[in-house]
Each structure stands twice: as structure tokens, then as C-alpha cells.
């Protein structure tokens, strides 16, 4: 059985699907890159969660 020749509309649909796939892939990469930047810029990665965390307390200066 011979394959049906590809219609122009199938090519257009493939192009559309490919465009959406590439866009979503780039979006995922961007969100990942943003996450890496936000997390590694030195912002605190811990927060108060009802247990004592001395490392979160502000450092006491000499002489106080």
C-alpha cells in the first residue's frame, strides 16, 4: 500500500506544533535559568519555620 502524499496542511500543522514545542522548551529553559540566578544570588534560602535557627539571626556586632 502506497503512502498518501503529504498535504500542505499537514506541513503547516507540523510547523505549528513544532513552533509551540520550541516555544515551550525555551520557556522551560528560561524559568530554569531564572531559578538558578535567583537562588544563587545570595538571597537567604532558609526562613523561619517554627524551629530555632541561629544561622538566621542577625550577627551581633562587637561591643554591643
Amino acid at each position, binding site marked *: 500500500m502506497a503512502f498518501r502524499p503529504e*498535504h500542505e*496542511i*499537514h506541513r*503547516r*500543522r507540523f*510547523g*505549528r506544533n*513544532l*513552533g*509551540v514545542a520550541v516555544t515551550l522548551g525555551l520557556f522551560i529553559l*528560561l524559568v530554569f*535559568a*531564572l531559578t*538558578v*540566578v535567583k537562588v544563587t*544570588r545570595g538571597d537567604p534560602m532558609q526562613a523561619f519555620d517554627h524551629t530555632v535557627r541561629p544561622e538566621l539571626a542577625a550577627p551581633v556586632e562587637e561591643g554591643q
Partner: protein
Amino acid sequence: MSDIRAYEQPGEAGFGDYVQLLKPRVMSLVVFTALVGLLVAPVSVHPVIAFASILFIALGAGASGALNMWWDADIDAVMRRTKSRPVPSGKVEAGEALAVGLALSGIAVVMLGLAANLLAAALLAFTIFFYAVVYSMWLKRSTPQNIVIGGAAGAFPPMIGWVCATGSISIEAVLMFALIFMWTPPHFWALALFMKEDYHTAGVPMLTVTHGRKSTRNHILVYTILLVPVAVGAAFTSIGGPIYLAAAVLLNAWFLIGAWRIWRRDEAVAEADSYAVEKSVFRFSLYYLFLHFGAFLAEAALRPFGLGGW
């Protein structure tokens, strides 16, 4: 969808048609002005955050363009300039344009809030609302001042770029906003003078249609005169400097001369040379905006070498 139905729809949209919904030419101006707003701010921004911020500002602008195409499909269909747009040409259904516009608006605002800050996201949300609802749905068909007030939507991007970097609004951001806001009316009215049939056919109450062409010429001159102090005044803020001042003085002098030449012509003269002056002022107005923001950028780029700024 079955193949049989697919063959019955030769106008099925490709990916590029959805991109056209976002008005890529308008987006390019948004990207440029927002990027300048972000780069001239006195706060350095991480490149990834800067890239994401500009991308989401552009996406928000594109989303408002899609909402505009959904709402204006009827008048786009009768205007020569717009009838090949995806919705009036039948490639994309109006409902799809609405869905794309709403979805991208939400994504752009939320992501800008996460990437930059909440004030920038709020300003972007307001810009989309202003363009889609205040301008497209309300002003455009009801008042000849449509583009004066609607121009605010196009003026927000550099302010949002600035807010992405600094987290607050300052005089510099307001002046960049005011520069585009005051530039929009003479720019569009020059276009309306030589695209007169389009707006008339579509029933859009452009100034040329409601108040006549002489009044439009008067308005172009008055708004250009009002634009000059805004454009030149920005030279004396922290984002200005001698390069910007020189560029602003030359560009504004040229623009004023152009507006004056439009003002002193009448329709008979303009018809005789196919609106040559109006067309040249319209083209120049594009360079005018591009070069002002280019000069801001030049000042910021030279500042680390001790050359930019005062």
C-alpha cells in the same frame, strides 16, 4: 480533527499567523524602549533577569495586540492597511485571538512579577488593560482624542523597564513616558493625513474625519511644540547628558520644521505632491523616537568611561 475537515479549511493558521497576532513590529519598538529604560537605570540588573523582564514586557505588549485584533476584527477588515491581519483574513478565528491574548497577558504579568518585581508587573497589567479596554474598546471608536489618551499604552514600556531595575518610579521614568506620550499624536496624525480613506471607511473618529484636515494640521503643530520641552528637558536629568542634549536639539528642531511645513500646507498643495511632506514627517518621526532613546543608551554606555552624563 479529521483529515476530511482539515481539507475543508484551506485557511488553517500556521505558527507565523499566531505570531502576527502579537504585532511583532510594535513589539520591536516596545523591546527597544523597555530595554533602554532598563539599561539607563542606575541599578545593574543580572543579564538573565534583564532578558526575562524585557521578554515578558514584550509578551504583554503582544498579548494586548492580540486582544486588540480580536476586538477590532470588524474595522480591520475594511481598512486597506489592516485587512491582511490574521483575523480579518480568516486564518485565525476571533475567539482564538481572544484566548491567545488573555493567556499570554496572564503569563506575561505573573512571570514579570516573579522575574522582576510586583510594581513592574502591576504596570504591565495596567498597560495591557489600558490598550485593550480603555483604548481599543472605549476611546478608539468614540473620540477623536483616541490616540492622544491611547498613546499612554505605548509610552509605558520604558517606565516598566526602569521599574524592573530600580523597583520605583522616578522623574527619569516619567520623562521617558512623557516623551513617547507626546510624540504619539503628531506621529499618528501625520499618518492619518495621508491614509485618510482608511479611517473614514472604517468609521474610526480620527481627528481628520471629525474635525477636518486643517484642524489636524493645527493639532500636529501644537503637540509638536508641547513635545519639545519634554524631549529637551530629559537632557538635564540623570539619564541625559551632552550627547543626548545635542541629539534632542537637532531632532526637535527638525521635527518642529516638519510640523510647521505640514501646518502651512492646505489640501490642494498636499494632494498635488501626494502628501510628500506628511509622509516624510511620518517617516522622520520614527527615526526621532529611535534616536532619542539611542542617545539615552549612548549616555549610559559611555558613563563607565567617564564620558556620558553631566
